[in-house]
Structures are given as C-alpha cells and as structure tokens.
C-alpha cells in the first residue's frame, strides 16, 4: 500500500511535466489545427543553448531558465515561419511533414553545437526530500507540479478572459471572419506559437533540471510524451492536457515499479491505443480528434 501511494505520488509529479509539455502542444494544435512534430526538438534547442551557457560560462540557474525558454521560443518561431506560416490552410499534411524535416535539422544542429552525446544540466533544487509520514516528496517535483498548475491556470485565463485570447478563439472559430473584424491573424498565430513554445521551454527546463542531463534525444522524448498526454487528455483542451499528463505519469510510475523501465514505455503506448479506441476524443475532449475544444467558450 505504501509503495502504491508513493508510486502514485511520483507519477503525479512526473505527470506534471508531461502535462506541461502537452499544454504547449495543445495550444499549437488548438489554434492551428496542425500537428507540430518539431515541438519537442525546438524545446531541445532551447535546452541546448541553456546547457551551453551553463557549461561554457557557468551561468546561474536564472540565466539558464531564461536562455532555455528564449531558445525554445526562437526555435518555435523559426518552425512556425518555415512550416506553418507559408502553408495554405488546407495543407495540413505539408506542414506536418515539413515540421518532421525541421525536427531532423534541429537535432543535427544540436549535435553540431555540442558534439558529445550527453551534457550536464544544472539542478533546480538540491535539498533533501520532504518526509510526509512514510512518503517522500522531492522539492523539485513539487515545484514542477506547482508550475504545471499555475501555468495551465494562466493559459486558461489568457485564452478565455483576455483580448488576445478572444482573438485566438476567433481565429479558431473562423479565420476569414477573424480577418474581417480586424484581427491581425498572422501576428496572433505567431504569438500563440511563441507562447506555446515558451510553455514548452519551461516544461523542458523543469524536466532536464530534474534529470540533470540533456541529450539530442530529448526532442523526440518531449514530442512523444506531449503528444500522448494531449491525446489522452483531449485534443485542444487546456485542463485535459494537464490531466492527460498526470494520468500518463501515474500509469507509467506503476508500470515502472511492477515491470521495469522497458515495459513502462510500452504501457504508455498501450494506454494511448486504448484511449484512441475507447474514447477517441480523450478524457476531457468533447469532440472527436478532428475537432478541438480550445475555441469553445468555457472549458
């Protein structure tokens, strides 16, 4: 029983990072209705720039956070300009495939910047874990959970309460009509992309600060975890992204405990498959995967 609870706690904490990754993913998908496979790799570029200033100039944690987020945002805008802005609304496949090409490009770029396979990443908090009866709570895990909840609440507020959010939901609802009411659609979409990448950058920083190392494979890892969590939670739903992340984290933690690390990833894909078969719209999505719920008035 103690193991079960401890595993669940660990799962929730790790799941918070999946939720954050899914949050950025779902923002891009919700606004553009396109799958951005380069989402994870652009976060990885940010992380590489972060680790670069850490390794080369022994930069402090604040500088590393700023660099990671900034790098992810710049890489995200680069992806948007190259893969999404020039493609017509009907060319969703072209966008997805070109985002795959950019993924490979970003991965190679990261290897060129820092040729060794693994680089150290500065830790977030090094204190001893909190003890709660028989259970252990890592400080950096708690910070990650808090970030996930705060950021998702913040994103929810921006989308449903701010003028910028109104513009984004108008664009989701009908891009032509959004033009007609005077919304600068191109700029708004680019800003949404940048915002989503910033969320991803924060997620990436938190995950890597806990792992304390970064490899070029992090890009693929982030895309996969974000994608699975988003699909489980419900495409285009903000609370769904966090919830999907938590569910994925908890399921992974238990399967890791019972079956070991190889089986853990297998279980994650099984969970995705079961979800797609049994509830294609995800836990909180109220529309099939072709639709998205971010444009709805309240979530």
């Amino acid at each position: 029983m103690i193991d079960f609870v401890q595993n669940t706690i660990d799962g929730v904490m790790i799941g918070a990072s999946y939720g954050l990754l899914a949050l950025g993913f779902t923002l891009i998908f919700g606004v553009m209705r396109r799958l951005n496979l380069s989402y994870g790799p652009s976060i990885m570029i940010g992380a590489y720039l972060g680790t670069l200033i850490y390794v080369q100039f022994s930069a402090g944690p604040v500088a590393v956070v700023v660099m990671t987020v900034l790098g992810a945002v710049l890489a995200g805008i680069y992806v948007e300009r190259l893969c999404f802005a020039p493609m017509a609304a009907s060319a969703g496949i072209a966008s997805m495939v070109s985002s795959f090409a950019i993924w490979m490009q970003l991965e190679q770029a990261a290897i060129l910047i820092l040729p060794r396979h693994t680089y150290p990443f500065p830790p977030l908090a090094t204190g001893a874990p909190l003890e709660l009866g028989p259970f252990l709570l890592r400080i950096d895990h708690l910070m990650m959970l808090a970030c996930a909840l705060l950021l998702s609440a913040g994103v929810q507020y921006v989308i449903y309460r701010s003028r910028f959010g109104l513009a984004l939901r108008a664009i989701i609802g009908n891009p032509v009509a959004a033009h007609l009411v005077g919304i600068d659609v191109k700029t708004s979409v680019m800003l949404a992309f940048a915002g989503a990448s910033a969320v991803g950058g924060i997620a990436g920083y938190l995950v890597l600060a806990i792992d304390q190392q970064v490899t070029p494979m992090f890009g693929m890892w982030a895309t996969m975890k974000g994608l699975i969590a988003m699909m489980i939670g419900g495409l285009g739903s903000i609370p769904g992204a966090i919830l999907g992340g938590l569910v994925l984290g908890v399921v992974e933690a238990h399967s890791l405990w019972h079956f070991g690390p190889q089986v853990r990833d297998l279980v994650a894909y099984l969970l995705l498959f079961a979800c797609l078969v049994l509830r294609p719209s995800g836990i909180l999505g109220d529309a099939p995967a072709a639709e998205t719920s971010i444009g709805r008035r309240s979530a």
Partner: protein
Amino acid sequence: MLVVSDLVAAYGKIEALKGVSLRAETGRITCLLGPNGAGKTTLMMSIAGILKPRRGSIRLGDTELTGLSPARIVGQGIALVPENRLVFPQMSVLENLLAGAYQRGDKAEIAADVERMYDRFPRLRERREQLAGTLSGGEQQMLAVARALMSRPRVLLMDEPSLGLAPLVVAEIFRIVSELNRDGTTIFLVEQNAHMALQVAHHFYLMEQGRVTFSGSPGQLAEDEVIQRAYLGARRAGG
C-alpha cells in the same frame, strides 16, 4: 465615398473581375445585383482585403485600400458582413460583438455600443450568453450585422444578407438596412434578391460575368428585366 476603379481579380488564370468600376456614395444605399458567379463576392472580398486584386484601385475618400491588410482596412472604416454570416460559432453572442470591436480600445464606449446593438436587435439581448453556433439563421445574420457595426464603420458592406432566410426574416433584414442608413451609415449591398434590394437602394449596379453591365437608379430599368438579368444574366437570358 467608396470608389472602385477598373478592378481585376483572378483565381489562377480565371478572371473573376474583368475591370469593375463602381462607387458607393456616402450616406446612401448602393446595391450590386447579379447572378451566381458574376463576381459579386469576389468584389466584396477584394474590398475587404481578403483577396488581393491583380489590378485597379479601391479608394475610401483619399485612402487607397488595395494592398492594405484586412485589419488595416477595418481600421480605415470598412466592415463586411460576409456571405453565409461567418459568426464565431463557439463564442457567445456577447463575445462575437466584442470581437467586432477588436480594434477599439474605449471599453466604456464598447459596452455602450453593445447595449445599442441589443436595443436594435432585441433577440441578441435575449441570447447574449448563448453560443452563436446555436442561433437560427436569421439570428446569426443579425449577429453578423451587429458584429460588423461594432467596429463603427463608415461604410458597411453586406454580402447577400438574405441568403437562405425565410421571407419574413428577409423583410426584417431589409428594414434594418434602411434604418442603419437613415442613422447615417453608408451601405454597399450585394444581393440576389433583386425585388427587396430595389426597394431600399438609392442606386444599383448590375454585374454579369465579371463586368458591370448597368448602372442606374431603381425605376430606370423595368424590375422584370433587372430580376431576369440578376438571376440569369442577360447573355443567357436574352439568348
């Protein structure tokens, strides 16, 4: 005054507008009638900046509009009520109105304008919290008009506001068009419903196959002929 001169617009090699010139006088209702495929919607989308014309000019007062982004054109005082209304289906009626005022910063004035829209369109007040996608066709048309008015346009463009609506609702829409015009809005209206349009218009144009083929005031051409040409096009109808 909105002046369109020698406008050419094309989809690929197919020219939809083959040199269109017309004007919408300030303070009046100008109608553009013509059959399907005449290029009416292409003209409206070109004025609104959604489509980029090949040649020609669109001027509002002294300002050239061709080449401006749709958002800048709204800023110049033009609002289009598009064909098929295009409300934001998953946003409430109120949010649709607020989106219409997107470029305005005067919060108190925007709130006052929302109230004015509710006074003019009482059904929208009743349904202000409802998602726009759940409204009837007529209500969506009212909302699309109100949304366009929220930008306080100098010229209101309307693309087939009667499309797909019941006769009573159509009459209501045209009553509102006249009313808006009496209150000072310049209106440029595209219609297939020639009968209704001729009742409210001060001036009208006929457009066939990408060209303006008649310009005059209602009564200058027998309504039968207008209707025949507006629905069928003279070349085919005349035989």
